[in-house]
């Protein structure tokens, strides 16, 4: 009896008897080698299953199905606003990551009169950095457009009744997302630490202070105190570049995942 391990199902013998081309031999050998270690056949099966499930849904187009001669609702351009907000989010994320290389969230006094380090890093990006002005412009515009698209997206969903059963949960996630988008915008608005930012921050502190019972606690947590300081800027920065991106990206993924599973609510 040899100590050599037996190939229980004799894949090699099976391959020999099949008279394969070199390409096929290499492919199968690799596949079997990998499969013995990683069980990839299971996953391939899964993928295949998914592939067919996705492609099974090749119905007649909506207009054909219902014989709609009024194509306006079918081609209603507002149905793409959800994608627009996602795209704007991606563009903002990329340009924001690039801006993050040059921005420093510090309220310490800068080198020039009256400016802070944060303010001057923005000024540096806009004046001295190659392509910096355009970069900030893209970031700002994609943020503005994202907020606008998200609002219009919500209106579209409302007026076409797309929030109805079975899509209530996605509507709720959407409410959370639109709120977080505005928080995203607000925290970003504060980062340049110019006059507008400072006084908008002041309003924010006052708003959170006037929440019943939890007001002071909220102000401490979000703004790091009852008046604006380095702590405020730091917190806004961390919210804007660390916390919110994780939360919002996850929620967007869930939001779109649910749309994928449920399909687009039919216009008619």
């Amino acid at each position: 009896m040899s100590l050599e391990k037996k190939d229980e199902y004799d894949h090699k013998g099976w391959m020999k008897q099949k008279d394969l081309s070199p390409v096929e031999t290499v492919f199968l050998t690799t596949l079997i080698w990998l499969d013995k270690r990683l069980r990839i056949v299971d996953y391939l099966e899964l993928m295949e299953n998914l592939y067919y499930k996705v492609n099974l849904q090749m119905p007649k187009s909506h207009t054909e199905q219902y014989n709609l001669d009024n194509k306006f609702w079918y081609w209603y351009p507002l149905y793409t606003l959800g994608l627009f907000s996602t795209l704007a989010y991606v563009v903002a994320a990329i340009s924001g990551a690039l801006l993050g290389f040059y921005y420093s969230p510090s309220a310490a006094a800068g080198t020039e009169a009256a400016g802070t380090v944060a303010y001057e890093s923005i000024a540096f990006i806009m004046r001295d950095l190659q392509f910096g002005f355009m970069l900030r412009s893209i970031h700002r515009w994609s943020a503005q457009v994202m907020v606008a698209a998200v609002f219009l997206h919500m209106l579209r969903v409302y007026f076409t009744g797309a929030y109805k059963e079975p899509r209530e949960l996605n509507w709720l996630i959407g409410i959370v997302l639109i709120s977080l988008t505005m928080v995203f915008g607000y925290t970003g608005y504060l980062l340049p630490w110019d006059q507008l930012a400072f006084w908008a921050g002041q309003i924010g502190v006052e708003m959170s202070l006037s929440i019943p019972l939890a007001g002071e606690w909220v102000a401490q947590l979000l703004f790091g105190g009852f008046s604006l300081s380095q702590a405020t800027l730091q917190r806004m920065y961390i919210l804007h570049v660390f916390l919110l991106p994780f939360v919002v990206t996850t929620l967007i993924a869930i939001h779109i995942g649910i749309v994928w599973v449920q399909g687009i609510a039919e216009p008619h």
Partner: protein
Amino acid sequence: MTDDTTHQETDAEPEAEEPRADGSGIVAPDDETPTWRERKTRTQGLSQLTYEYFERARREDQDLRQESDYVERDVLAFPTWPHEVIRNLAIASFFVGMLIFLSATLPPHIGDPANPSSTPAIILPDWYLYWSFGLLKLGPLNPDLSILGGQKLMADRTYGVLANIVVVGFVAIVPFLNKGSARRPVEQPFWAAVGVGGVLFAFTISVYSAKNLIPMNLDLLFDLTFLIPIVGGFVTWAVLKTMREGYMYDLNRRYYRLRPPK
């Protein structure tokens, strides 16, 4: 456990048999997967209930599919892939182009650095928060109670924050208030009117938040803030009511005959 062992004993192959090399003896591991019924009999309590429900749900799906004359596909929706995705990708390239064009032609500028000792004449958040900012200025609506000797129950600021919560909360529960299979605004004039009123209110309250945006008597502006949405909503309602009959005739002919509403 006993179930498992007996099951394996009966199914085990006699050891004398040689492994076949032609692949025919290979048993997919999935064959060992218990059916829902088997799982149900093995478990108890909540998990058994879960399996029972799964079985029921599958049967329900099956029945619905067999009853339905809607044979094209079993998801009652417009497919995301490929219809929606292809259409969206085409528009997406235009969109990104538009973004870059906007950024190139209308770049943002930066104001004076922060100065805590000089309050600017106009304090405003970014435009998309105007509505929320306007809701903070609802002081005149905050009732003062005679029980408290003409005092207000809560500070105006608290009242404004609560107004924000109420507005967002109302929008959130819309799906639980408005049910049914209607999709077009003409099918439900009331809810369309609520929507139009809401949109108009978002605009008017935004204008109100920047009090000096429109040169006008402040009291009048405050009244208009609430009147315009109500009037707009009512007009929408009236128009849709009028249009409804003709539209519903078409809808019934084209759509609801094919897919009767629940």
